Structures are given as C-alpha cells and as structure tokens.
C-alpha cells in the first residue's frame, strides 16, 4: 500500500479524465511514480505526481459530453454550444468586436456616470436616522419681496427642543469666515471651520476616530478631521494638542474621519462657547438642525415651528412689518436642493444630476440597441448555419441554445472589458471631468451589473431568438430571413434610435458650446481682466487704505481699490434699507456693496446718471449709488436725489448717481437691485482689488507681497485672480460640457460602428440581388442609391424624432441661466449635416462596394 500514488490526486484524475484516455494516462502516471519512488524518494515522487495530474488537465483529456446521460459538470463550458459561439466569434471577428466593443464602451461610460450619480444622490445618508433629521431655514418677506435663507434664529434650536415634543433633538452651527489657525510659527489659512454646539457630534453621524463625543462640551475645544490633524501636527497624536485660533488656544478633543458626501464641508469644529454669542431670537445667523419624532411629518412640524417662531419674533416682525416662515429641509435633500441665501452647504444643481441620469440611460440603451441590431442582422445571414447545426448537432445545437450561449459569451467578454475600461477612464480623467469615483462602490456595482446585464441580455436574446427562429427553422421564416428587400421594421427602428441619439448629442453639444461662447462674449458691465484680489483679514479701513496707497505706488499696478464683494467669497450680501417711494419710506431687503470711490472707474463700470461719490466727509450726508435695475425696481423715474436710509446706522443719505448694471455673479442669476455706498470706518473693506498692466514685470507679485507684509505682518499673503474666480463659478457647467463631449465622441464612434456593421451585413445579404440587378441593367448610381435607401429613411426618422428632443432637453440646462441664447435653427442644421456625413461615409462605403460588384463572381454559386 505504501507505494501507491497519492490517493486524492488519483481520484481527481479519474474524475475529470475522459474514460477512453484514462487507462493510458493513468498508467503512464503510475509508471513514472514508481520510477521516481525508486530513484528520488517518496516526497519528490508525490509532488511530481500531483504536478503531472494537474498538467494533464487539458481540454483534450477532459470528459466529453455523454450523449446518453447528459453533460457533466466540467463539460458544460466545453460542450458544443460554447465552442460554436467561440468559433463564430472568431470567424466573424469584426462583427463580434463591433457588437461587444460597442456594448462594453457604452456600459463603461454608463457605469462611470452611474457611480458619480449614485454618489451625488446619497449625500448625508450616513447619519443614523437621517430621515428624521432636518435643517430649518428662514423665509422672510419684507414689503412684498421674499428672500429664502439657509440660516435661522440663534435661539430656535434649543427653544424648539424644550418646548415642542415633536422635536427630539437639535444642534446648531455657525459659519466661521476667514478662519486662521496658528501653530508655533506656521499659519494655516486654507482650513474651513465651523463653530458647533456641544451636541453636534451626537446629532450627526461623522465618524469619530479618536476621542469621543464630549469633545465639544467645553469652551476652547476643537474637533479636527484626519487630514487636518496630519496637517497641523504631523504624525503626532493630535488629542490634547493645542492650536491657536484668533488669540484663543484650542485643545483638540477628538479627530473625525475626513468629510465626504456631506453638505457640510469642514476641517475644524470649534466648540460653541469659545466665543460669546448674542444668543437671542433676533440674531438670525445660525444654522439649526432638528431631529423630529419619527411619527411627525415635516409639514406638521413646520406649522408648529412657524407658530413658535411667530411668538418669539413678534416684536421684530411688527417693527419691520415683515413675515417670517421656517423652511424645513431633510438633511439628505440639502445637497441637491434649492438654492438658499447665506447657505454654506456644498451644493450641486439637481438639474445637472438629472441630465446625467438621462445620459446614462440613453447610453445603456444605445449599447444594447447596437448589440442587438447587429446580432439580429447577423442571425439573419446565418439561417443556413442553423439548419446544418440542427442536422449535425442534434439536441445540443438548438438555435435557442446557440443564441443564449452567444449571449453568455458576450457577457463574459463585455463585463470585464467594461469594468476595465471604466476603471482606466476614471483614474485617468477624474480630475478632468470632476468626477470623483468612490472605488469602494465598484464592488456592489459589479454585483448589480453582472446579474442585471446577464438577465437583460438573455431576455433580449430569447426574444430575438423567438423572433428569428421560433422553435425551429420553418420554411416561411427561413424565407423571411433571406428576403433581402424587406428589412424588418424592428431593425430600422433600432438603427434610428442610435442615429437619433448621436443626433441629440451633437445638437446638445452645439448648444452648450454656443452658450459658453455667449457667456464669454457677453458684456458683463465690469472689466475682470488683469485683476488680482487680496482678502483682508479684518474690516479695518485705515490699514486697508495704507495698503492700497502703497500698492498704487508699485510700477505695473494701474489701480488698487477696496470693496466688500468677491464672487462666492462673501455670504452676507443683503441688508435692510429704507427707500424713498411714492408712499414714503419703505423698507426693503436689498443687495448692497461698499467700496472706495475709484473702484468703479478702475473696474470700468460706467456711471450713467449723476456722478460717482467723492470721498466722504465725516458727519455729512451719506452718498449712495444704485444700479439701473434698482432704479427700475424701486419705481424711481429720477434716481438722483432720492433718499435712502441704511438700517444699521440709521443715517440718512441721498443717491448721487446710477451705475450701469454689472454682473456680480454668474449669468445664472439675474441682476438684482444694488445699493452702493462708500467704504468707511463703520463699513470697512473686505477685499482689495488690484488692477495691473497686462504686461508687468514678473516680480510684481513679490513686490506686492512685501508691501502687504509691511501693513499686515502676521497675515499670509494670498492672491486670487478675478477672472479665474469667475470661471470657477461655472465649474459645474464645464463639467457638463466635458461629459457631453465624451458622450458625443463615444456615441459617434458607436453609431459609426453600428451603421458600418449593419451595412456590412446588409451587403452580405444582398450581393446576389445586386449581381442580378447589374446583369439586368442597373448602373452604379442606382445600386448605390438602393443600398442607401434604407439608411436614408432611418436618418430622416431619427432627425424628425431628434429635433424636438434637442430643444426639450437643452431647455433644462439653459433655463438655469438668467441670460441665455435661444436655441436656433443652426443647432439642428449642424447635427443634421453631421449625421448625413456619418451615414454616407459608413454605409456609403459598402454601397460603393456593392455597386462595383462583379456579377460573375456573386452569381457563380447557389446561395
């Protein structure tokens, strides 16, 4: 017994091996084993035996399909069907490539976008019980003007929690603008910070890595994110370390995971009691979050909150003659939700996400349509194959089985290919497209994609199969298959869908490009070029004046002025003013801006009426400017001389001039009425705008830094460029454009392939027909036209369907702009021409080949 070869290896061999070959294979293996046992010893003999058994595992040795008992485990993959499918794929390599390649590319693109969309849709879902967590905003109506804010009264949170049983928990936070952290000699100015109530960490689901939830209970405490900890303290343990924040020493109490997929984006949380707060209802500057009882609907809660707020704010409401209503938003809805004023949430326009979802679905459909179009056409050319298979293959070559195995083969090729493509593209283009992929989601994505894809393909193939063959190749269907002049309507519509989609993409891209051109060339009323901006650390006007004076002395600097506005840099832009009107002084919430007098001339904003204000004399009447929209909205016929009273200081002033409307923000927002007044000690300056010569010495920035360091020795020097800033405001739109571009390229490629493939198969079907026609007397042009006829019909269908779709879909995106182009005729004509060119190039090539066919060659053989 001892010199028997290893039992399990032997059993394994006996199990997989074809019984006809087993005797000789096993015999040889045993013989070798005995020899090695003699010469080399037991261990070597055993190892080599196992190795031989493994090496014997080849397709030619493996068990074949047993005609009587049915297939065994191993042979399922190697039975007749799969081989046939493989053989077919290799024989018609091009068709196979087109089919699966097109599907793989579309699938990859769809999945890539899908990952992004899924990520965007699931913001803030990691908070436990997020369905009951809401943020309360404020809707304020002042003299008929309604403004919706993201902030709410300071006292609202705690009051709601104590007085309303429906509210089971709350937290609040404050936005900290321009946070500056200092550790030893280093200054950190790029961190984002919020100030949060002690229950912040218990309320939200941000994962705590070190420390615990009590970290915000005491004043002078901070909670930081992982990467911020590394930034501040390197690899040292951050807990217990201190960092300086505006002359406060904060102690780090806890570290949380880096924030992603949340509408709140912060690096540091400072505990609430570190600063004193004006903790009253009238201070509407906090962000309040509440947790409702699960049985309470948000609508009901809104009513309770509104009543409560009405009580506490009664004085303020009466004084300003205003209306106040709470706005309630579920935390998971904030990211894609409506735009609110003074909102620090990380937001994305929901319409953009929906556009992407539509693109996704379209792409998937196009990939599938392409695949089945070609598969359908391919099957039609192979009716003979089925007949022969039937004869020789018996029960194993049922056409249905062939189609299904074809589908399995496709799936096995497509899915890994698509996954690979997607991973490749995402890693290469994540920065370009602005799509950050969460690779941890690829696992579940694959698990979903695989069975879904399999089911889809199998179902569609089964449908195809029943359409094509119907349980047996009957004579009439056979006739239909080879009936070349009538093309099944299904095929036509499939092809039309493909063309329509490309048409759509072409149209949308041309509209997007046009709109961007419009944005660039639109006169924004203000000159952004060559302007650098420095953020001032405080509102102190005298320091700012010193800085601007010094900056003006530098050569290469054309002007330096202060102002209160920087695109997307300021949260608070509206204030209450009393304006003169027919009925006396009326209160209104208006956008405002304060700046030095020469600011507007430096930025080339024209004064259309009256004049610019001169530097103010203390004690004199306040001088105001308004913009043209303000004149219109306030109902003034003559603006100069009208009275305005600022709410905070009650000083009366007069309008001295009207400036031309200029765009403060993107062209998404309409221009609003604007009140402008000079920057002074009360209303300081927040930003310094520096206009430089277009061609200035390269060391200008260094010189500016020196000047800055002289006036603000403790502050880091940071220069922003106005033009770049404006461009970054359009970030989302650029993303859309890029995604559409990629989509366009892919859809054109897939469509070309699809049309080409279809055309090739069609040509294969019709060579005999063309030969006969030629013999009977048709000339080249007629044959060309015959082949193209099918495609031209399809093109027209796709255009007719596509044109209204272009206008409808582009409307979604264009409507997000207050200033936009109207999609015109050109946007349909251009895609039409492109589609015609594509079809002519691809199908025309075959039409040409067909037309040149030599009748003698094709009519030699019977079909």
């Amino acid at each position, binding site marked *: 017994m001892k010199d028997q070869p290893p039992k399990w290896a032997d059993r394994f061999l006996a199990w997989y091996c074809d019984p006809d070959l087993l*005797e*000789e*294979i096993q*015999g*040889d*293996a*045993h013989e070798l084993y005995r020899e090695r046992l003699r010469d080399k010893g037991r261990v070597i003999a055993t190892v080599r035996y196992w190795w031989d058994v493994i*090496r014997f595992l080849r397709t*030619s*040795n493996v068990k074949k399909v047993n005609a009587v008992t049915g297939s065994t485990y191993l042979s399922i993959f190697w039975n007749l069907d799969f081989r046939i499918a493989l053989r077919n794929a290799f024989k018609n390599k091009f068709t196979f490539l087109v089919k699966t390649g097109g599907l793989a590319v579309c699938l990859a693109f769809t999945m890539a976008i899908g990952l992004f969309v899924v990520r965007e849709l699931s913001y803030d879902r990691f908070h436990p019980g997020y369905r009951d967590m809401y943020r309360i905003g404020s809707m304020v109506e002042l003299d008929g003007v309604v403004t919706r804010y993201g902030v709410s009264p300071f006292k609202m949170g705690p009051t709601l929690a104590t007085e309303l049983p429906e509210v089971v928990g709350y937290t609040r936070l404050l936005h900290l603008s321009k946070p500056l952290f200092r550790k030893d000699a280093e200054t950190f100015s790029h961190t984002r910070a919020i100030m949060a109530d002690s229950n912040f960490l218990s309320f939200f689901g941000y994962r705590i890595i070190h420390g615990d939830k009590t970290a915000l209970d005491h004043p002078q405490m901070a909670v930081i994110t992982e990467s911020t900890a590394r930034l501040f303290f390197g690899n040292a343990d951050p807990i217990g370390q201190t960092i300086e924040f505006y002359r406060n020493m904060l102690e780090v109490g806890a570290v949380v995971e880096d924030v992603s997929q949340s509408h709140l984006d912060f690096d540091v949380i400072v505990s609430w009691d570190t600063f004193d707060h004006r903790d009253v209802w009238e201070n509407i500057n906090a962000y309040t979050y509440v947790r409702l009882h699960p049985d309470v609907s948000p609508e009901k809660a809104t009513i309770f909150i509104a009543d409560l707020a009405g009580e506490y704010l009664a004085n303020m409401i009466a004084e300003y003659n205003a209306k106040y209503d709470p706005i309630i938003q579920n935390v998971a809805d904030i990211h894609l939700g409506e735009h609110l004023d003074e909102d620090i949430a990380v937001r994305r326009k929901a319409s953009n996400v929906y556009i992407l979802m539509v693109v996704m679905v379209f792409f998937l459909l196009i990939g599938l349509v392409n695949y089945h179009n070609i598969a359908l056409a391919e099957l039609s050319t192979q009716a003979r194959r089925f007949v022969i298979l039937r004869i020789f293959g018996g029960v194993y070559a049922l056409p249905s089985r062939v189609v299904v195995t074809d589908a399995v083969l496709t799936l096995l090729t497509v899915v890994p290919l698509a996954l690979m493509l997607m991973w490749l593209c995402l890693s290469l283009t994540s920065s370009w497209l602005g799509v950050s992929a969460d690779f941890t989601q690829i696992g579940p994505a694959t698990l979903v994609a695989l069975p879904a894809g399999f089911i889809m393909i199998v179902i569609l193939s089964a449908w195809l199969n029943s359409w094509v063959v119907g349980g047996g190749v009957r004579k009439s269907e056979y006739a239909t298959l080879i009936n070349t002049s009538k093309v099944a309507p299904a095929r036509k519509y499939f092809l039309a869908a493909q063309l329509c989609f490309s048409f759509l993409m072409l149209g949308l891209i041309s509209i997007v490009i046009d709109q961007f051109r419009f944005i660039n060339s639109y006169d924004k009323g203000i000159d952004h070029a060559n302007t650098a901006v420095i953020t001032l650390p405080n509102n102190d006007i005298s320091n700012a004046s010193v800085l601007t004076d010094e900056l003006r002395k530098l050569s290469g600097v054309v002007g330096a002025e202060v102002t209160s506005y920087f695109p997307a840099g300021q949260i608070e832009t509206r204030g209450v003013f009393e304006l003169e009107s027919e009925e006396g002084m009326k209160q209104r919430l208006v956008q405002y801006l304060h700046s030095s007098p020469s600011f507007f001339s430096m930025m080339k904003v024209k004064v259309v009426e009256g004049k610019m204000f001169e530097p103010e004399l203390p004690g004199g009447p306040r001088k105001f400017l308004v913009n043209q929209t303000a004149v219109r909205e306030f109902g003034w016929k003559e603006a100069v001389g009208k009275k305005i009273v600022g709410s905070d200081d009650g000083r009366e002033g007069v309008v001295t001039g009207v400036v031309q409307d200029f765009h403060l923000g993107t062209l998404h927002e309409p221009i609003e009425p604007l009140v402008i007044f000079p920057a002074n000690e009360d209303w300081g300056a927040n930003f310094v705008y520096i206009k430089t010569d277009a061609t200035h010495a390269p060391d200008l920035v260094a010189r500016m830094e020196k000047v800055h360091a002289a006036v603000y020795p403790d502050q880091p020097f940071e220069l922003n460029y106005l033009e770049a800033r404006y461009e970054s405001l359009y970030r989302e739109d650029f993303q859309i454009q890029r995604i559409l571009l990629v989509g366009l390229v892919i859809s054109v490629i897939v469509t070309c392939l699809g049309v080409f493939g279809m055309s090739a198969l069609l040509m294969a079907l019709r060579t005999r027909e063309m030969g006969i026609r030629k013999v009977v007397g048709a000339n080249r042009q007629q044959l060309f036209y015959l082949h193209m006829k099918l495609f031209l019909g399809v093109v027209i269908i796709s255009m007719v369907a596509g044109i209204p779709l272009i206008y409808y879909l582009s409307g979604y995106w264009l409507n997000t702009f207050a200033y936009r182009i109207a999609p015109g005729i050109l946007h349909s004509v251009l895609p039409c021409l492109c589609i015609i060119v594509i079809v002519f190039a691809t199908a025309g090539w075959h039409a040409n080949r067909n037309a040149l066919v030599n009748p003698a060659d094709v009519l030699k053989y019977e079909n």
Partner: protein
Amino acid sequence: MIQKGGHLGEFEELVLLGAASLVDEPYGVSIMKYIQSEAGRQVNISAVHEVLKRLERKGYLKSKMGGATTERGGRRKRYFFLTAAGKRTLEESMRLKLQLYKRVPNFSI
C-alpha cells in the same frame, strides 16, 4: 507538398523521431525518457501525450493498446507506430533541412 497544417513543429518532430526510433515499445513514458536521454530536454509527460495525439490526428502515427504491467496497476500502454505518411514527412523534412544547410557558407555538416 505537405498541405496546410501538416508541417512539423520542432517538438513534434522530436517526438515523431522518438516514436520512430523506439522500435519495440514506443509509448508516452519511453518516448519521454528517450527525449531526455538523447536531447537532454526535460519534458512533462502530458506534453508528450498531447503531441502524440496530435501526430495521430495528422496521420503520421497510428496507435494500438497493449503491454499491461503490474507497475502500471494492470493498465495497458498505448503504442504509437510510424505510418507511411509519417515516414515520408520525416524524410522530406530532413531533406529540406540538409538542402538549406548546405547553402549556408562555412557550415560543416
């Protein structure tokens, strides 16, 4: 002329020569040992089997079962004998090689 697919690969030729030389017992293990001793190449038994099957398919060998031993647990061996076609192929291949080698200058064959 040898038709398409009929040309001998290098290893195939080696195995065929082995089968042709071993007059008495040309089967898997013996051919494998022959190659090892004559050509100095270590080959796996499964590779030899595969080539033998291929050569049989091509018609250069014909196989027969026989020769059971106790070492093999009573299992028979499959012998592969050279066919006329196989002999012809070998001869032609050798002739061609010699012809070409003779044309190379400074070769001592």
